């Protein structure tokens, strides 16, 4: 097992820059999810760590050793591909044993280790089967088996659940996390699915246009998004933005929005007047008839235990997640109260979050 350290990593394909100045560290035994939309550079980053692409500049360290330009075969890394890449001309046993064969492991030991791996993944009964007839989940397990059988320094996974159907994906999310808890292998997992990332990862790196927008625990990413992009990408429905123009002084504890004063975590920096956005998660909005912030109900989406109510305010559409008990009429005027401890403030021009006590206080929650 090993620590992965990526330093100022950059990759350009001709004019197109796929990854720009990426730096992060995955601690030994940690599970990192690289999260972002397609084309954001997450897979390219993963392939550079694997040695399938060479960086344009920057360095990659495995356990302190600079492997930036080493061959993939020399890095002792396992990779699970999106389409699994199980060798079609070999059966399950041979597929899993293939990495050991290259290391010259004796046949008896290969047999023992393949069987041990199969047992761990509960696929002992399909060892002699051809891989072409396997169901999606079993293919996934065989691919995992091929990865863990040689006990590599770390695992890299490129959207391994992308081709499974929704129902099965949830099962595999649990299996993967459980497997990680058991073998504690340093893992980098690429996905565009925020739920997968949230459910499995210790740390998440949210990427966009080749840049890491935010690196942190799932809680940090959700509760203290570093940019409007992250706030918008994470959460469903995503964070609401209320845009307004104002200047803010260091130490301010409220802002004026359309003449309504809204309290928020203490601001830690001075901002010249400009366009700002107040970010609020749907679950941090309550309906309160006495509130000065008002809007009219635009629509409601019933979800069983709760509902998403869209409210048209003067500043745009706000989506609130509230209990399903109350029924709303379309066009009905309602008062909205925002949970002031949880509000984020962004600078629209840069898209970055404004520093506030949200970022310095309680690391949890």
């Amino acid at each position: 097992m090993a620590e992965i350290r990526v330093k100022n990593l950059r990759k350009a394909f001709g004019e197109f820059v796929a990854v720009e100045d990426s730096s992060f560290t995955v601690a030994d035994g940690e599970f990192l999810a690289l999260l972002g939309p397609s084309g954001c550079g997450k897979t390219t980053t993963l392939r550079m760590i694997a040695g399938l692409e060479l960086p344009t500049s920057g360095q990659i360290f495995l356990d302190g050793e600079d492997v930036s330009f080493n061959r993939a075969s020399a890095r002792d890394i396992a990779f699970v591909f999106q389409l699994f890449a199980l060798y079609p001309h070999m059966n399950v046993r041979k597929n899993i044993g293939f990495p050991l064969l290259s290391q010259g492991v004796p046949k008896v030991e290969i047999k023992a280790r393949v069987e041990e791996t199969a047992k761990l993944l509960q696929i002992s009964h399909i060892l002699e089967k051809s891989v072409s007839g396997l169901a999606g989940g079993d293919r996934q397990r065989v691919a995992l088996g091929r990865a863990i059988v040689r006990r590599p320094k770390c695992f890299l996974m490129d959207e391994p659940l992308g081709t499974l159907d929704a129902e099965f994906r949830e099962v595999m999310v649990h299996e993967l996390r459980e497997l990680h808890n058991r073998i504690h292998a340093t893992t980098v997992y690429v996905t565009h699915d925020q739920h997968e990332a949230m459910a499995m990862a210790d740390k998440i790196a949210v990427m966009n246009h080749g840049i890491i927008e935010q690196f942190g625990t799932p809680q940090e990413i959700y509760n203290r998004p570093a940019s409007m992009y992250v706030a918008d990408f994470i959460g469903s429905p995503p964070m609401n933005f209320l845009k307004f123009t104002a200047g803010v002084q260091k130490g301010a504890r409220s802002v004026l929005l359309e003449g309504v004063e809204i309290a928020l975590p203490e601001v830690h920096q001075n901002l010249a007047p400009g366009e700002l956005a107040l970010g609020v998660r749907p679950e941090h909005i309550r309906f309160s008839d006495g509130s000065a912030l008002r809007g009219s109900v635009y629509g409601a989406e019933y979800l069983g235990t709760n509902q998403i109510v869209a409210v048209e305010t003067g500043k745009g559409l706000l989506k609130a997640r509230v209990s399903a008990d109350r029924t709303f009429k379309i066009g009905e005027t309602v008062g909205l109260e925002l949970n002031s401890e949880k509000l984020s403030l962004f600078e629209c021009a840069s898209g970055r979050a404004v520093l506030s006590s949200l970022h310095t206080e309680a690391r949890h929650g």
Partner: protein
Amino acid sequence: MSTANTAHSVVEPSLMTKRIAGAIVILYAIITMVPLAWIFLTSFKSPPDSISYPPKIVFQPTLEGYCNLFTTRTRQTPDYIQSLGAPTSTCDEITRNRNMVIAGPSNYWPRFQNSLIIAFGSTFLAVFLGTLSAYGFSRFKVPLADDLLFFILSTRMMPPIAVAIPIYLMYRQLGLSDTALGMILLYTAVNVSLAVWLLKGFIDEIPREYEEAAMIDGYTRLQAFRKVVLPQATTGIAATAIFCLIFAWNEYAFAVLLTSGAAQTAPPFIPTIIGEGGQDWPAVAAGTTIFLVPILVFTILLRKQLLRGITFGAVRK
């Protein structure tokens, strides 16, 4: 099941369509098979039967054609033949009945061997080089790849006869005229373009994740190519090999021009078989029949791959 259901199937061809299609296929098969059947029958006819008019369909089969194919004979007086001992073989007997004796073996077998060596040798080389180049074009960023591929294809755009004279002069200078090596190189050069194009299609279809997985599993690129790509490309390689082999086996124009003795292949040799008083048609037919056997066996063995080779790219797995 109501009749309306069956009648309205959009994807299933109707019974009538199937019958018409079947009839066309059978007719086509007959048309292509008749010349082959005629050659096969002629090879068992006696020389007079082979040129009789109207053509004989029912005749007394004889091995005379095959005997004449493999031997050279000299005419002798009946007295001399009488003075010889008992015939040593069937051919000996057939020959004596024509007032001739066997003088020695003909050149057919050496020419046939030349054909085998040149066709299989050039096929092996073309497929070997073609597989490696196709892999390179498929997987690496080759500078000017499109232009190179077009150039490779363009070597097939001219009829062979257009380059025959320059090649003839070149070969004479290089001492490659009438050598098996020269013919192998020539057929390889012609076939490699076909091999690169066909195989590139097949290799493009093999996802590169397989090699990447193998490289991550600790193999070098060459090992990954051998252990993961090659086994999956066997269909394509087999199809390509048979196309190359058929070309090299049947090639006539270059063979006539560039080989006359030691390296002569069977195609230019067969028409030169002369019998008593003109063409010995049963011997020519026998030579052709035997000449067809290797390609027939090879094609039957690899017919599945051949079919896929013809339709490649049309159907994705």
